């Protein structure tokens, strides 16, 4: 009987995790290029319960039981956020809709073939260099320049150019004078090509990206990433930013659902408590 008490407790913990994730999505409603996360819950492995008759070795199968639940992982939804115009030359948005031959991705970037195999749509990212020299990926394109003329993200990390080195603007030239040309390079006002372009990374399976904060993702080791090739359906838009893809309504509903599910689990704990109370204090009580 006590088993159920622990099931309810695991429910409380899992709903709590869900609640945390949704709160974090809400917190990043205004964060440029943020991708919302969900927390799928999973039941524990099934187990077979048996009953041994007292005084014998005879066992009887009672049945299966999957007692507890846990928050398994934190899955990021990679669908495109809305673009909005800012009229600021340091703002860049990525529109990524990379296609693979013979596959038709749904709006969540997923394709299931007739054998049930799932393929996820590759996604494009700006490539940034952390201060430790680690390469990370980002959709947050609100860039600024530092004293050395390096292009930096809003958290101060350097942005990599198409040659794989951090982008350094020519001395005396501000980002406000540069416009993005059709070939992905930045052009000066007089039409000369600066030869500076972005290193856009194409991540084959974006689920292998882990959010690390500061608008960045880190790719799990051994995963495929390559520089965007011509013909990939990726557009860089200057003077635009990508909003977070957090759904206001969905967040609110999920928040309520998580809170209510938490409440229900708490009720179950209480009921067990009452039952135990009866068992401990009332059974065999002499009036």
């Amino acid at each position, binding site marked *: 009987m006590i088993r159920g008490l622990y099931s309810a407790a695991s429910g409380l913990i899992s709903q709590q995790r869900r609640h945390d994730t949704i709160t974090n999505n809400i917190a990043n409603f205004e964060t440029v290029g943020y991708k919302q996360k969900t927390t799928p819950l999973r039941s524990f492995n099934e187990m077979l319960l048996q009953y041994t008759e007292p005084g014998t070795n005879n066992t009887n199968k009672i049945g299966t039981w999957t007692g507890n639940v846990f928050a398994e992982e934190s899955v990021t939804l990679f669908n495109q956020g809305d673009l909005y115009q800012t009229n600021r030359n340091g703002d860049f948005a990525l529109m990524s809709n990379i296609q693979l031959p013979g596959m038709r991705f749904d709006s969540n970037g997923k394709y299931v073939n007739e054998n049930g195999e799932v393929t996820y749509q590759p996604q494009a990212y700006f490539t940034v260099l952390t201060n430790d020299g680690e390469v990370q990926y980002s959709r947050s394109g*609100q860039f600024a320049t530092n004293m050395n003329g390096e292009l930096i993200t809003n958290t101060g990390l350097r942005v990599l150019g198409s040659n794989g080195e951090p982008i350094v603007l020519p001395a005396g030239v501000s980002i406000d004078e540069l416009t993005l040309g059709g070939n992905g390079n930045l052009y000066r006002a007089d039409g000369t090509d600066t030869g500076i372009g972005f290193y856009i990374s194409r991540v084959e399976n974006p689920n292998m990206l882990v959010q690390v904060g500061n608008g960045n993702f880190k790719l799990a080791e051994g995963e495929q990433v390559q520089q965007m090739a011509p013909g990939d359906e990726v557009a860089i838009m200057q003077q635009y930013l990508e909003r977070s893809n957090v759904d206001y309504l969905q967040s609110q509903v999920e*928040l309520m659902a998580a809170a209510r599910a938490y409440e229900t689990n708490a009720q179950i704990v209480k009921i067990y408590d009452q039952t135990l109370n009866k068992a401990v204090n009332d059974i065999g009580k002499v009036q």
Partner: protein
Amino acid sequence: MNSSLIIAMNSMSAYQNKIDTIADNTANVDTVGYKRKIASFSDLLNNTTSQPEDFYKDGRLTPLGFTQGWGARIASILTDFEQGALQATDVSTDFAIEGRALFEVIADNEGTVAYTRDGSFQISMNAQGEAVLTTSQGMPVRATLEDGSQGSIVIPNGYAIQVGIDGTVRATNGEETLNLGQINLISPVRPDMMTQVADNLFAVADGINAQDVVQRVFAGENGITIRQGYLEKSNVDLTTELTDLVRAQRAYQLAARALSSTDTLMQISNNLRG
């Protein structure tokens, strides 16, 4: 449980900052030469709770570990140097810059240089009793004088000033015309390294080499002109600000709701044994 609480708290203070920035912009909608500020958000560091190898089960999409973010913060406040609209005033000491440049002014007695787009100048008396071209707060406007030195423009008694589109200042009393010099202009090469300080001024923070951040430019080139008798209005667009306000307020509201929901959860768990 505490994490929801902390996330909601972090994000509410970030949204509050965003609303403050919007309020700052809307308050300065009529400030001459004001440049709007943009609050830029970033998500806070995530931590990953490690999971043992057994957690790798069929259908799992992500690498091992459960990541949890801690909300958002304002990562930086950017200044939007977009051109504001010009307004004719017909006042001879009103100036507006068209193009990417700022006036140089002397902000204090030690000769600290600051920069402004606010061209609502006036003629003030300095300590030596000379009539000097200053900002509306009385800071002398820096110019290259006729002899090539840097200083403020002194207007002889009885003369009126005329400023050409290239920033050259002449004084005339109807009979003769004197060349007084050229108003200094600088272009913000690394605009993000400039800080907005009080009195509508921009300054280069201590420890940063000003030559890297700003560059001398001349009116009449690179599409920069000075217009006498005009003022540049702020580049704040009320429609944009109010739309941003609606979004920020709704986001704040949602975060507050998450906070109260967390509170409910805590109350429930407190009453488990009740």
